[in-house]
């Protein structure tokens, strides 16, 4: 969601897109996407950082690719009676899976060190709903005529950044929580959900900052 209120220069509008994607519309805390890896990978700061960076990169890349495919392939085809709205789901998920696969191969060639750091998280990313979600919400904005390539690039980056920030915060909190006494039934997922709720409350406050 982009604020028309920003008006003025295109740069300012892009900053609004970035801020609203990363903070007010945080894909994890206000859209609930990418919860599964968020709950399972946030135990350690280091793995949280690896996962977050991988998500950031893949979200940015696939958002732009999916945008081009949607605008230059699916929309023209819709004129010939192809059900673009239904097909976009299959197209997006294939693009994401292929992108992840390619990136894995590329990283393996370029840097073994990075491969070992990110390697195990890459296959998990295909089923991270935050990434498919970013593409699907991006299409909503494109349909209403508010997004071009640069906005989509910024939106994808902002979404990934928001997820990275959220998982880093959570990993930090869980690290501190190790010494806390938690009731047995609430340990693990339960307490993590409550903390996520409190974090979500904090992010709700941002909604007054950037008007959507």
């Amino acid at each position: 969601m982009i604020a028309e209120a920003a008006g003025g220069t295109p740069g300012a509008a892009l900053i609004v897109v970035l801020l609203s994607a990363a903070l007010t519309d945080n894909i994890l805390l206000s859209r609930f996407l990418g919860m599964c890896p968020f709950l399972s990978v946030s135990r350690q700061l280091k793995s949280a950082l690896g996962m977050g960076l991988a998500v950031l990169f893949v979200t940015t890349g696939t958002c732009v690719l999916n945008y081009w495919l949607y605008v230059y392939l699916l929309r023209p085809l819709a004129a010939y009676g192809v059900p673009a709205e239904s097909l976009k789901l299959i197209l997006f998920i294939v693009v994401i899976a292929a992108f992840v696969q390619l990136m894995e191969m590329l990283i393996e060639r370029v840097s073994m060190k990075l491969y070992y750091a990110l390697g195990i998280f890459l296959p998990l990313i295909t089923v991270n709903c935050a990434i498919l979600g970013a593409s699907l919400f991006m299409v909503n904005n494109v349909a209403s005529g508010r997004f071009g390539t640069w906005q989509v690039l910024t939106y994808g980056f902002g979404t990934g950044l928001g997820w990275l920030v959220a998982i880093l915060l959570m990993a930090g909190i869980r690290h501190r929580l190790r010494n806390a006494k938690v009731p047995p039934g609430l340990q693990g997922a339960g307490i993590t959900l409550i903390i996520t709720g409190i974090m979500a409350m904090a992010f709700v406050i941002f909604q007054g900052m950037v008007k959507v």
Partner: protein
Amino acid sequence: MTNPQQQPITRPGRAMLVQLWRENPIFRQVLGICSALAVTNLVFNTALMCAGLIWTTTMSSLTVSLMRNTIPRRVRVMVQVLIIAVYVIVVDIVFRTLFFETHKDIAAYVGLIVTNCIVLGRLEAFASKNRPLASAADGLGAGLGYSLILLSVAAVRELLGFGTLLKNTAWETVVLRGWEPGVYETWWRNWTIMVIPPGAFFVLAVAVWAARAWSLRQEAAAAKEARP
């Protein structure tokens, strides 16, 4: 997830029951809540999501199980995701035709059933190794177990957040008439926090807590019973 000493479960009815409660995907494994939490402030939207997920898990489990010997191992995740996507598109088209107004709100989340971890998890863990009937039952059980928790979360959120049940449908009932100055001078005030995202996390956390505490107590009692 599964105990190595346990017998492999191959009977359809048993597979379904295990998924429904003992290995319930939500409070046991906390999986697949992504696409559902956002719609749980209204019971009707949640019911639609649950119906979509039950259909998708059951049918894709059945399909993957039927094809389990023909899918090449290397590309199996891709094939599974495509099978799921086909069933999700069916759900999407059916919802768009039957419930146009509600579909507008939940369209993006229906699409996200594709990446729901429950579906892919059941395909990987069960359907790709077992017979079709047992796999379909396993998928159905996982879907029902998910719906059980999510519908109760939605009922609590809608009741406290709007004071109604089944809002925006023909069966809408006002349980708690919310206080409006000069209109309804009642004691009840709607809780805004239940409508916005944080409410979902809190209610789900309490649901997970209650379910886990209950099963911990059961286990403790069973352990006591086993010891003479």
